């Protein structure tokens, strides 16, 4: 028996699969369907809260800003100061800034930033907040003064260019440079301003509230599926407390700077407990990894907005949607044929995690191909380590080589796994690098839906059958992880809604309303609970077994090297040879 077949046989024992028959009762007895019902319940509640309460004068404000931008674009061949101000004004129109949305955010919020005293993650009194603000004020004053100075210089340069009717290339170029300097100073001042806005908080009541809400939500599904709500309720607080501690560690100042998020801490805390004192048996009813992941993924589906695909035009599509699948498929084939990875599911999760967008892609593909918990843990671990390295190394390389920031941004956006790390590395270089990197990454994020769907279909048709066996469409349907349908449906519904409303209004009430103001917070809690559960149910020995021969590391390294080369070539071809006018516009 080959290693691969042995693995398949082992999988059959360890992984719960739908039986090859369809019953009406599946709708309320199966976890996949409950993930859909709970996910859609939250999406519907989010829509009921945000859609009837858009920002006041939203359309007028957006319309006015768009008129100014159109007029300025017609007046000058460069982005003028007025153009930027209008663009900023249109971005300030968002439902998440309204009072009711802030109350929801405060309720669902997780522990805050702290340095040495972990209690500060949960409680900060008024005096401490005022001291923090006072300490940050001089920096803000200096940044504000620098911004005003830069603005004056930009105005002077722009006036000179305007006096020449924007016909003088040199004056235009000088104005563009001065305006870019002002934007950099403006960003610094905005960042410094945020640090003067600290407010007192006490998160304990809201965290207890969130715990109760989450426990009730999942207990509904548990009640219908197993009927054992009591043990779940008894066990849930411990899993929730570990999830809260994971968030607390994410907020530790140095860890924030290293980009080590809650996913890593949840797994680490769970692993330490399960492999030392052991996960108590009474906690196991709340260790519902798949249920939390699938429900979180249905919510994630709502965040996959297909109209975002065209944000940066065709170059973005080529860098994010052509290179990524090529790298994914090539890495997977390399893992199977050359490295002879013992587990195809581990191979797929690492390939997707490395080529698409790290943790979120790993979760989605792991659920779609029914990978084991240890395999997801390993893939996430690899991604976190490489993300931390690439976030530091790539901007340094781009700076050292003098690479154009649009090219560098596209390169980082297409290759660094985590979106937060991409934004940090991009913003560190310049606004142009940030805009390109973040947009490419966002387009790549949208690819998760398509990848998860095809991986689920491919696994049902190829990997879950005996060698030589052909699987018909009805059989594929029987084996198909049904929650993926909820994931796709949420994406289609929200993409349609977003497009119908128009980009600007959709961004104000869907992206910066229902999604960022409501469902995202729940989704993050669900994933945090899932990673905690993974840690609590994982044995170090199992992890060690998967790491045998260092094959996962070799796979990730080779795949990422190929990704770096191909993305750089494609970004250069697209942004400099085929569409140079787009690069000049950014």
């Amino acid at each position, binding site marked *: 028996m080959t290693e691969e077949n042995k693995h398949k046989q082992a999988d059959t024992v360890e992984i719960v699969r739908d039986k090859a028959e369809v019953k009406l009762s599946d709708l309320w007895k199966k976890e996949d369907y409950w993930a859909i019902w709970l996910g859609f319940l939250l999406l519907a509640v989010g829509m009921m809260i945000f859609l009837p309460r858009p920002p006041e004068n939203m359309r007028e404000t957006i319309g006015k800003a768009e008129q100014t931008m159109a007029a300025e*674009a017609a007046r000058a061949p460069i982005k003028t100061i007025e153009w930027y101000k209008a663009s900023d004004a249109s971005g300030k129109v968002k439902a998440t800034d309204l009072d009711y949305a802030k109350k929801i955010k405060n309720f669902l919020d997780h522990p805050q930033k702290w340095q040495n005293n972990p209690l500060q993650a949960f409680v900060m009194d008024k005096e401490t907040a005022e001291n923090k603000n006072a300490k940050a004020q001089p920096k803000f004053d200096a940044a504000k003064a620098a911004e005003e100075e830069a603005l004056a210089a930009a105005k002077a340069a722009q006036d000179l260019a305007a006096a020449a009717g924007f016909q003088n290339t040199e004056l235009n170029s000088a104005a563009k440079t001065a305006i870019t300097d002002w934007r950099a100073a403006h960003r610094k001042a905005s960042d410094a301003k945020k640090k003067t806005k600290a407010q007192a908080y006490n998160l304990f009541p809201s965290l207890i509230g969130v715990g109760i809400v989450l426990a009730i939500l999942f207990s509904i599904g548990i009640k219908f599926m197993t009927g054992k709500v009591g043990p779940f309720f008894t066990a849930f607080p411990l899993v929730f407390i570990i999830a809260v501690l994971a968030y607390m560690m994410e907020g530790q100042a140095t*860890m924030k700077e290293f980009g080590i998020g809650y996913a890593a801490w949840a797994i680490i805390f769970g692993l330490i407990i399960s492999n030392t004192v052991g996960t108590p048996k009474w906690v196991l009813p709340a260790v519902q990894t798949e249920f939390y992941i699938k429900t979180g993924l249905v919510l994630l589906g709502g965040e996959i907005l297909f109209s975002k695909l065209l944000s940066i035009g065709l170059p973005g599509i080529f860098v994010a949607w052509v290179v990524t699948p090529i790298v994914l498929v090539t890495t997977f084939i390399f893992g199977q044929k050359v490295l002879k990875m013992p587990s195809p599911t581990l191979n797929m999760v690492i390939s997707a995690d490395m080529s698409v967008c790290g943790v979120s892609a790993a979760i989605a593909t792991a659920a779609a191909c029914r990978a084991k918990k240890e395999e997801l843990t390993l893939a996430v671990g690899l991604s976190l380590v490489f993300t931390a390295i690439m976030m530091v190394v790539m901007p340094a390389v781009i700076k050292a080589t003098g690479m154009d920031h649009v090219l560098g941004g596209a390169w980082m956006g297409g290759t660094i796994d985590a979106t937060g790390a991409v934004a*940090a590395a991009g913003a560190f270089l310049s606004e142009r690098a940030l805009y390109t990197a973040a947009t490419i990454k966002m387009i790549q994020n949208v690819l998760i839906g398509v990848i998860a769907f095809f991986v689920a279909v491919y696994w049902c048709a190829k990997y879950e059958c005996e060698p030589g066996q052909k699987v018909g469409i009805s059989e594929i349907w029987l084996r198909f992880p049904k929650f993926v349908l909820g994931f796709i449906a949420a994406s289609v519904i929200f993409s349609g809604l977003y497009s119908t409303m128009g980009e600007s209004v959709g961004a104000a009430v869907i992206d910066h309303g229902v999604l960022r103001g409501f469902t995202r917070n729940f989704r993050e809690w669900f994933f945090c609970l899932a990673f905690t559960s993974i840690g609590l149910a994982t044995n170090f020995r199992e992890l060690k077994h998967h790491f045998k021969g260092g094959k996962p590391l070799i796979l990730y390294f080779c795949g990422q090297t190929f990704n770096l080369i191909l993305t750089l070539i494609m970004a250069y071809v697209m942004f400099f040879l085929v569409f140079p006018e787009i690069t000049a516009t950014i």
Partner: protein
Amino acid sequence: MKTLSMACDIGKIMKRSDNSTGLVRRWLALAAGILGIWLFVYGFAPWLQRHSEPVRTLSEYIDASGVNAGSFYYTSVEEVGEADRAIRNTFRFFPGGHDSEK
């Protein structure tokens, strides 16, 4: 008979002692795990920041800007929303972009 009963008692005591030793070892392992985390957070990570220029520079930038570098999806990163809006406005209104209205 009495000897047998004594032997059983001794066996139980030894088993209990083994269990408690195992328990102590497990709790010690937990404490070691927590100590490992503490050493990483307050020892290794700050040491790396002090001794590596690129790490320190980026860390200082992340601290000053407040970018959420640990987030893994675009909806959790404010800067992505800003970038999306800026790029969309650029292509919509700026000459050379994808302005369908002009």
